[in-house]
C-alpha cells in the first residue's frame, strides 16, 4: 500500500495542498502551529475516516469554509485508486474513484495506518483510559471485527447504566446484565489475543532501546475480577463478570454506574518487579511506548504480510538522541511508507534517504524543500 498523491482543500488550517509524497519517507518541517500535524491528520483521516485528535468533525473544516476535502491516489493491491473524503455540515462522505462508499474497510483491508503522536508518549504515565485507548487502537487494526464488537459493548453498558440510574432491577436488569457479560467477554477475548501477540514483541523492542536491565512486562488487569482472564475461556470470562456484577450491584445502583468490566480495566506496564507508571523515568516511559509502537507495526507486518502507513507527529523532539536514532534507523530499514513531522529537520535526517520528500509547512501553506 502506497500513497502516491495527496490533495487537501480547507482541511483544518490548510487551504489548498497538492503534493506527491516520497515513495518511502516524507518529512514536513515547520514551527509549531503552522499545520504540520494537520497534514498528517489528513492522511490519517483519509485512511480511517476518523479524526486523529478528539473533537467534532466540524472542527476539520477550515474556519470560514463550508466543507473540507481530502483526497489521495493510493496503490492498493496492485491497483491505483482515487479515494476522497469530504466533511460538510458535520457529516462525512467517502468516495472511491468518484463513487460513494459507505466504508473504506473493503479497500484498505482493515488496517491502514499506525499513528504515533506526542500524546501517545504520555500513555504510561497517564490514566487507565489512555492505556485502554492505546490497546483498543491496536486491536482495531489487528481485528477489524472489533469495531462492531466494542460498539455493542458500549451500547450494552449504556443500557445497563440507565437501568441502574432508573433503579429498574428485576428481570429486565438481569437480561441486560447477561447481554453485557457476553459482549464484555468478546472484548476481553480480543484485547487478550492482541496482548498475547504484542507483549513479547514489546519486550523484545524494549530490550533494544530501553537501556534498562529490567525487562518490560505488559499485563492485562481486569478491575475487581479474581479470575485469571488470560487462562479462562470466553464463557468463563462472561460467567466471572456476571458474578462480579451481582456482587457489586448495590454499590453500582448507588453510583448509577457499572464499576466492573472492560471499560474499567487497565494495562499494567512493569519494568521487572516495579510499576512503570510510578517508578520508570520519563525516558524509560517514552521508550516503553516507542517499543509498543514498533511491536504493533511488526505484529501487523507478521499478521498481514505488509506494512501499514506510518505517521509520526513530532515524536523525535520528545525522545532522547539515542532512542530517536534507534527509531529513525528502524524507519529507514522498515521499508514502510512513513510521514514524519518535525520542528527540527536535523532530528529526523537519519530516517531520510535520497528519495525522501522534504516539505515545509508555514501558516497553512505546504511547499517543497530541496532538503536541508
Amino acid at each position, binding site marked *: 500500500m502506497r500513497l502516491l498523491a495527496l490533495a487537501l482543500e480547507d482541511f483544518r488550517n490548510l487551504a489548498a495542498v497538492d503534493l506527491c509524497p516520497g515513495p518511502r519517507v516524507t518529512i514536513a518541517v515547520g514551527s509549531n502551529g503552522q499545520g504540520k500535524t494537520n497534514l498528517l491528520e489528513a492522511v490519517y483521516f483519509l485512511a480511517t475516516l476518523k479524526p486523529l485528535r478528539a473533537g467534532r468533525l466540524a472542527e476539520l473544516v477550515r474556519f470560514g469554509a463550508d466543507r473540507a476535502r481530502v483526497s489521495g491516489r493510493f496503490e492498493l493491491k496492485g491497483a491505483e485508486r482515487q479515494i476522497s473524503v469530504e466533511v460538510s455540515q458535520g457529516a462525512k462522505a467517502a468516495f472511491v474513484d468518484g463513487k460513494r462508499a459507505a466504508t473504506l474497510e473493503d479497500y484498505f483491508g*482493515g488496517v491502514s495506518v499506525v499513528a504515533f503522536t506526542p500524546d501517545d508518549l504520555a500513555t504510561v504515565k497517564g490514566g487507565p483510559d489512555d492505556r485502554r485507548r492505546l490497546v483498543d487502537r491496536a486491536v482495531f487494526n489487528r481485528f477489524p*471485527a472489533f*469495531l462492531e*464488537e466494542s460498539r455493542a459493548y458500549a*451500547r450494552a453498558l449504556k*443500557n445497563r447504566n440507565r437501568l441502574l440510574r432508573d433503579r429498574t432491577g428485576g428481570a429486565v436488569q*438481569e*437480561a441486560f446484565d*447477561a*447481554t453485557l457479560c457476553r459482549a464484555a467477554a468478546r472484548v476481553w477475548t480480543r484485547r487478550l489475543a492482541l496482548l498475547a501477540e504484542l507483549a513479547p514483541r514489546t519486550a523484545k523492542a524494549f530490550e533494544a532501546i530501553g537501556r534498562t536491565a529490567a525487562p518490560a512486562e505488559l499485563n492485562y488487569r481486569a478491575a475487581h475480577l479474581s479470575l485469571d482472564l488470560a487462562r479462562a475461556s470466553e464463557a468463563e470470562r462472561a460467567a466471572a463478570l456476571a458474578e462480579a456484577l451481582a456482587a457489586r450491584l448495590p454499590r453500582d445502583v448507588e453510583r448509577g454506574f457499572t464499576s466492573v468490566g472492560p471499560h474499567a480495566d487497565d494495562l499494567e506496564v512493569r519494568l521487572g518487579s516495579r510499576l512503570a507508571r510510578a517508578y520508570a523515568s520519563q525516558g524509560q516511559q517514552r521508550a516503553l511506548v516507542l517499543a509498543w509502537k514498533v511491536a504493533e507495526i511488526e505484529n501487523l507486518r507478521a499478521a498481514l504480510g505488509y506494512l501499514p502507513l506510518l505517521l509520526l507527529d513530532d515524536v523525535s523532539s520528545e525522545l532522547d538522541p539515542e532512542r530517536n536514532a534507534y527509531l529513525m534507523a528502524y524507519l529507514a530499514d522498515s521499508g514502510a511508507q512513513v510521514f514524519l513531522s518535525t520542528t527540527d529537520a536535523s532530528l529526523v535526517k537519519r530516517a531520510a534517504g535520497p528519495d525522501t520528500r522534504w516539505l515545509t509547512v508555514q501558516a497553512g501553506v505546504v511547499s517543497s524543500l530541496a532538503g536541508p
Partner: protein
Amino acid sequence: MTPDPLNRLVAELAKLPGIGEKTAQRLAFHILRAPPEYARDLSKAVLEVVEKVRLCSRCFALTEADLCPLCLDPRRDESALCVVEGIADQMAIEKTREFKGRYHVLHGVLSPLDGVGPDQLRLKELLTRLEDGRVEEVIVATNPDIEGEATALYLTRLLKPMGLKVSRIAQGLPMGGDLEFADPATLARALSGRREL
C-alpha cells in the same frame, strides 16, 4: 408564487420519512398533473389505512377485522409461536413460507436508553396468550443486536419456568450471499460458531 393548496401538499409529503423538499415537490406535481381520479383514490387509500387497519387483538399484527387472517387460519400450527419485534419482521419471516406456526408482535424491544420497558411492549398480552397451554415452543426472532438479545434473554427467563420450550433463531452468514461481502463482525461470529461436518 405557488398556490397554497400545493404548498400544503408539499409540506405534508415532506414529513414522510426519506422524502425531502425536492422529492415532495415532484410528487405533488405528479399528483396535480395526474387524472383527478388518482388523487381521489390516493386520498381514499390514505384515509382507509388509518380508519380500517388496526392491530389483531391476539397477535398484534395488522388486520382489518378483530383477528388477523393468520390467527384465524386453522391450518396454522398452534403449538409454535414466533415472537418478533415489529410487523416488518413478521412479514419477512412469513415470506419464507417456512414457518407454519403463529406470531406475536411485541412492537419494540426492551431499550432502557429509549425508555422502553416491559410495559411498553405487548408482553402481558403474550403471557395471557400462553396461558391456555396450546403453545409448546416459543421461537424468539428479535434482532441480533444488544437490545434484541437482551429481550430474548428476558423472554427466556420469563417463559422457561412456565414449562415452555424457548428457542432463538440462529445467526451467521446470509444464504446465497458472498462470503467476501459479509461484515467482519458477522463473519467472525460465523467462524466461532462453526460446526463439524
